[in-house]
């Protein structure tokens, strides 16, 4: 692959949510995202994986600045957005669009598809109604729908078709970055692969960069160039897809990979089954966040949090004492 410049650079972002637990009890907070750093090169797909509640969606919302990070910096195409005001942010948002998990909820049920897909154009351009209609029709064709679908409402479509509409809307401004937050997890397995293929084709055609968020490693394997594994708000391992899948370093990644079903009932393999639940992010464990469930736990893990460092192979980072 040709070395290209980084489109997204995330440096040590932190986000905590306060929880109000009543009048008399003390204020607590959830560390949803804790010192997460990564960068995404132009034209690349970076996937964030982890179980629910690990902060991957929050990270996506921080990158699109739907949420404001408490600490850390985010550059998109060279512009630092973590403290940017709304007016300037609007310009950046032309280049960053989102695809949401729930294709039923992310399209306004009261609007015709034409207006749904054209909304980014209305916000950011001064095109005439005819020009908008033409672009919408073109975009619907690009995502595999037909131009006559523009006159319909969202409830008249199936889940897969709605997600195509969501993708058309995200693409209509020709953005550079698409943040896709679990774009296929609400869909049928048979539809999932269609949408993933569509996303891949579109990436080539429009030279898109993806931040892809998913809990499903088999989905991620299909689409990513690089993968970041999150656990309790922290990045525990990141690196090129091949390395993560062939040579996972972190025990949590190993456990995740061993949970991916293999479509062969006779296949034998070692399953790593984690004991216990994910600790509460309100009260995270000391030292390494994973030590309460780690099968290879050592004494040092309980006291000292491991830093993310480069493993033996290049570009492969892991936060583990092992």
């Amino acid at each position, binding site marked *: 692959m040709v070395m290209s410049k980084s489109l997204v650079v995330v440096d040590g972002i932190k986000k905590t949510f306060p929880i109000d637990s009543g009048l008399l009890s003390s204020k607590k907070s959830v560390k949803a995202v804790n010192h997460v750093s990564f960068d995404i090169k132009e034209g690349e797909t970076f996937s964030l994986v982890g179980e629910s509640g690990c902060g991957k969606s929050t990270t996506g919302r921080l990158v*699109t600045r*739907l949420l404001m990070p408490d600490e850390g910096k985010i550059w998109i195409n060279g512009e630092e957005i973590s403290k940017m005001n709304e007016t300037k*942010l*609007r310009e950046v*948002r*032309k280049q*960053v*669009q*989102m695809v*949401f998990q*729930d294709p039923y*909820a*992310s*399209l*306004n049920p*009261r*609007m015709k598809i034409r207006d749904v897909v054209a*909304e*980014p154009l209305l*916000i*950011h351009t001064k095109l005439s109604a005819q020009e908008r209609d033409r672009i919408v029709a*073109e975009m619907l*064709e*690009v*995502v*595999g*729908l037909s131009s006559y679908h523009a006159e319909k409402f969202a*409830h*008249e*479509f*199936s*889940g*897969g*078709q709605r997600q195509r509409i*969501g993708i058309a*809307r995200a693409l209509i401004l020709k953005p550079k970055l698409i943040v896709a937050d679990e774009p296929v997890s609400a869909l*049928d397995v*048979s*539809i999932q692969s*269609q949408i993933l*293929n*569509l996303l891949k*084709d*579109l990436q080539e*055609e429009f030279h898109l960069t993806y931040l892809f968020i998913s809990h499903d490693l088999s989905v991620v394997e299909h689409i990513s160039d690089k993968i970041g594994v999150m656990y309790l708000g922290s990045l525990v391992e990141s690196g090129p897809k091949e390395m993560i899948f062939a040579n996972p370093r972190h025990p949590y990644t190993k456990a995740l990979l061993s949970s991916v079903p293999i479509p062969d009932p006779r296949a034998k393999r070692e399953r790593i089954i984690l004991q216990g639940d994910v600790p509460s992010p309100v009260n995270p464990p000391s030292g390494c966040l994973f030590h309460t469930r780690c099968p290879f736990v050592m004494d040092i893990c309980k006291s000292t949090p491991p830093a993310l460092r480069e493993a033996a192979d290049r570009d492969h980072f892991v936060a583990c004492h092992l």
Partner: protein
Amino acid sequence: MEVVKEIGHSAVVPTEKKSRAREFWKKWKKQKTAFWAGFFILFLFVIALFGPWIAPYDPYEPNYDVTLQTPSMEYWAGTDEYGRDILSRIIVGTGISLGVSFSSVLVGAVVGTILGLISGYYGGWMDRLIMRWSDVMFAFPDLLLAIAIVAILGPGLTNVVVAVAVFSIPSFARLIRGNTLAAKEAVFVEAARSMGAKSSRIIFRHIFPETVSSMIVFFSMRIGTSILAASSLSFLGLGAAPESPDWGAMLSMGRDYLATSPHVVIIPGIAIFLTVLAFNLVGDGLRDILDPKTKN
């Protein structure tokens, strides 16, 4: 541009065009009581519009030969103490009652909705200010508040409209604020924000439409309340002038003859009762159709 050729979605796609209006009409016909109450209201509107031409007698002209007549073939609803035909006065009064209540609730709804949207969407100190002000307004009994306002502004129908509108505002504001808070969390609102939509666009295009149906329901319910309030103010001598055929004023004038000629009071009373009932029934019916929380 290359077209991605594959749409093998297995799910069945409903293609028939179901317009919202037609669906509404289908459900509305099933609401038997509200359906007929709606007809009655339509009938009242016709009377309100054409009242002066329908009325068999002049509602203002006294005729001292026929004072306090009981209902007869000549005067279907009898006459009052000045010999004016009560039916004619009720007919002409319909316009006053509907006009006062509609305009006051409309003002209350518009102002209340704007306040509610601001309060719910922006939150923070604006929310606190608007909601605390509403709490203060709620602390007064509705009618007492209206009386206080009319007492300050002086009697007259315009001031009744103002008074009834003012006590409608906080109810609308609170209702719309609640809907706004719910709508604000919708994913399509988040989607609009991620596209870079301005607050004004999000409020008018995405949030306001979500609040309309409960506003319509509350509007129709509120009409009944405001007819009662306006009549009460007129009854107390704070609203319509005593000689005007306002239903509340008629009640007020007739109460001296309650023992001897009860029809002078009963007939405007029935008019108020039926109108308020009809609006409340329509409101109930609309709520059943439009409010997704009370499905079936």
